[in-house]
């Protein structure tokens, strides 16, 4: 008879020297693992709670301006610096890592010859034109830049006059942005509630889209350059595909007051918006509700936001003269992570993702503390919108079928497309 019994020799299963690593043996048989789903669920719940414990998004504030911060600019080639301009004409360059102001441009009135020269910078070139400028943006890949005011002017560095001018309608153009993928395409928004697209190679503006309310800012998606998102006065952001402007791709609704500024993350997967309601929200590029909201008692009306070029931080400039630095993922551990730490985080994220629909996990993951005025304003808005919807439904139900056409929400805010 042939007989064999399990026999293990200790040398094969234990380490030889104390300097060696311990030996690990794996058997992936599901029979050895009972209660897999329950364990995963427990881990998801614990991970959700830990995420909330470690959620500390605010890093610091950069203090220095003496009036509200109205605009910011970032150099895509330099990670650490950000330029900010305030409403009294003060321009500063900040070093984000150390939150030191690197230099500032003096106010034209306060040019004091006794001040040391290294703190002040002299402009390389000055361009003067016939009307006030409302916005400026530089081409991503080229020598041109565009200014917006009563019309859109295209300038070259070396010329003191614009090389081209675009005009469609008589209203002020309030914001302008160049397309990151297509260097000759730019989008502007005007105070006649329109969004206009231009191509520098053509002599006239290409497309115009008129909405019900004014768009305060536009940003192109750096990873999908045919899409752009417009931050609108009616508390929502509208994402459009330039190839099909008759309806919005996504409507991002969560703010309770006008959205002032918008910027995309370099990954193209989410964008940050700053609003008049004193909050900064992060939206996924294809999601209609925000994934995160940041607010502080001291932060007043947010006028400008920028996403840092490494996708980990956001900077918001607000009415209270401060620039604030926030983390994009509020519970992320910054700095270099060990491979084991990183794997553990990835596992926890995956397991939370898998069980996020279950009520207990969902409640914890979704929970955000809102300041009372915003909570009340949001409730009020919701009630108003629901009432309007109910009224429309009743009207439709009591009218002849087909006499009241239903307009899809993504088209509803667009008046005309030209």
């Amino acid at each position: 008879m042939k007989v064999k019994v399990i026999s293990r020799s200790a040398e094969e299963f234990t380490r030889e020297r104390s300097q060696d690593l311990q030996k690990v043996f794996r058997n992936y048989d599901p029979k050895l693992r009972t209660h897999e789903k329950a364990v995963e669920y427990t881990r998801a719940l614990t991970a959700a709670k830990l995420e909330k414990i470690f959620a500390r998004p605010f890093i610091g504030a950069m203090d220095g301006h003496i009036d509200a911060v109205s605009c910011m600019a970032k150099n895509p080639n330099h990670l650490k610096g950000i330029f900010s301009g305030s409403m009294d004409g003060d321009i500063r360059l900040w070093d984000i890592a150390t939150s030191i102001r690197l230099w500032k441009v003096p106010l034209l009135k306060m040019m004091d010859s006794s001040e040391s020269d290294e703190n002040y910078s002299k402009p390389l070139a000055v361009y003067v034109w016939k009307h006030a400028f409302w916005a400026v943006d530089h081409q991503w890949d080229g020598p041109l830049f565009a200014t917006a005011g009563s019309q859109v002017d295209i300038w070259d560095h070396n010329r003191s006059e614009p090389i081209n001018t675009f005009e469609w309608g008589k209203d002020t153009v309030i914001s302008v942005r160049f397309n990151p993928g297509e260097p000759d395409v730019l989008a502007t928004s005007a105070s006649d509630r329109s969004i206009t697209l231009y191509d520098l190679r053509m002599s006239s503006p290409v497309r115009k889209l008129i909405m019900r309310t004014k768009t305060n800012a536009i940003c192109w998606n750096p990873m999908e350059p045919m899409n752009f998102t417009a931050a609108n006065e009616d508390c929502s952001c509208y994402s459009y595909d330039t190839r099909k402007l008759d309806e919005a791709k996504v409507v991002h609704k969560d703010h309770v007051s006008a959205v002032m500024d918008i910027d995309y993350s370099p990954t193209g997967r989410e964008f940050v918006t700053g609003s008049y309601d004193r909050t900064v929200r992060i939206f996924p590029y294809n999601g209609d509700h925000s994934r995160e909201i940041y607010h502080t008692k001291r932060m007043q009306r947010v006028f400008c936001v920028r996403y840092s070029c490494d996708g980990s931080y956001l900077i918001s400039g607000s009415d209270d003269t401060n620039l604030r630095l926030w983390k994009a993922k509020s519970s992320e551990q910054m700095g270099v992570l060990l491979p084991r730490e990183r794997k553990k985080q990835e596992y926890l994220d995956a397991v939370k993702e898998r069980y996020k629909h279950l009520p207990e996990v969902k409640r914890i993951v979704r929970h955000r503390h809102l300041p009372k005025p915003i909570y009340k304003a949001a409730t009020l808005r919701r009630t108003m919108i629901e009432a309007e919807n109910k009224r429309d439904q009743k009207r439709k139900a009591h009218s002849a079928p087909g006499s009241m056409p239903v307009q899809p929400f993504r088209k509803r805010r667009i008046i005309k497309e030209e």
Partner: protein
Amino acid sequence: MSLTGRPAFSSWVKPKPNSSERRRLPPTFGEQLPSAGEPTALSSTHEIMDKDRLVTAVEQEMSDELNLKTRKYLRGDGANLETLRDKKLKGQLAVREKLYGQSAKAAAKAEKWLMPTEEGYLEPEGLEKTWMVKQESIIREVDVISSRKPFDMILPELGPYNLEYASSGRYMLVGGRKGHLAMMDMMSMDLIKEFQVRETVRDVVFLHNEQFFAVAQKKYPYIYNRHGTEIHCLVEHGAPLKLQFLDKHFLLASVNKFAQLHYQDVSTGVIVANYRTGLGRTDIMRVNPYNAVIGLGHAGGKVTMWKPTSVKPLVTMLCHHGPVTAVAFHSGGQLMATAGMDRKIKLWDLRKFGVLNTYSGHAQTMDFSQKGLLAIGNGSQVQVWRDSGNQEYEKYMSHAMVKGYQVGKVSFRPYEDVLGIGHSMGISSILIPGSGEPNFDTWVANPYETTKQRREKEVHALLDKLQPETIMLEPSKIGTVRPPRRKERSTKKEIEEEMETAVEAAKSITFKKKTKGRNKPSKRAAKKEEEVFKAKRLFLEQQQMNNDRPLKKQRIVEAELPKALQRFSRKKAS
């Protein structure tokens, strides 16, 4: 704690009954053959064709084997994506299903090539049968390490012995009826601690590791340290007859003299539940390792299954015509073996709760091994049965002990081919080739655990401790979508309660006081009464509707009765 979610409209997917594993499995190994058949310049095409076919046959066999193994790791059928209309979701789920297939394939390959140990077997030659083989002949054939594993410890004075192995298979706990307790390290055959408690000991069980164990003594269960120090005396449990430990939940379950079932969390010390079983004193208690449900066998032939969060048992099965003498659960969670005084041993399917097979015989104790072998102890004989395919068990091995020894408990040692027998004269252990799982997983149970590893494992086990609410008959239901429940007609009492709450709400409405002389108290009272009546009206209408319907039914029924029986219909008021 709700462990199932509300149905989200687009993610409600009904799994197809037929296997849709092909969706998950990438093309089988056979189809991915390297082009071995490309003719070289030197060989003739005929030879190449034969070689090609030969290679293909071998490869095909291997690929079939691997496919079979992969099926095990897939954990069920894939989702049926054809019914989905949401294209984005469909794409995302298709990617996920593909990933499952890949990981199952990788696990199957790892099982085929990377396992360090082979499982045991016993192959008789010629006319020999496996159950005729004696332990001595096995010990002679087997290697030195294994020949030291079977032993006989004769301890005649201290009563029938209970024994229990730790989940890693390395440590063994021995408890004699007259109070003799001992813990041994089976790998080095070392006695770790031996002491006498001078009280009746009915059962011993390890807690989450070998550092702690619980002993069912005469009046209460006690928890001891590995050094023999008494740590806790669990007074709430009463006089325990049997103890079982639920590993992942850190729950110690006990059934006592008065047929009460107690669950206590040993990490926090909280008594989670205590229930009166109501079916009389019993000492047959077993935990189902698959779903952590406690099965109790009662004197009336019933087997009940309990979970800590419900007062009534989950399942009550009438298994035998007489008292149940032993219960054992298969580690896969599908089989249960019960033995009764009616000289029957039955195998039950736990999905359908029906009998699979009935065999004739007595059993004082039963245990399933990791590989599905069933050990049955009866009198002074121990039989081991093996599944010969399709849940049909047949005799595999048999071991007869000295006539006077009465087998009290049989327990397979995890990850070894050893069966431990606790009997009236001590403990024995015998070799049963093919009973243990040869390859352990370090993160699940490690017989070669160091102190550091044990401590880490304890911390991780505590972090992943499952709540008692997660115990259910089908543990794979966690995270699935709950089917929408149709609302039943609420009982009369409930309707009354609802009416009362509505009336209270109506009464508590405050009205705006009118000015300019319109605020008369009579008018105010009338308005309040009107509100209350409005709230009541809804319920009164409902009641009337309910009252109307049965009358109509009865009248129809009366008309249908034949004339001879009409005097038995409901008497009309004269």
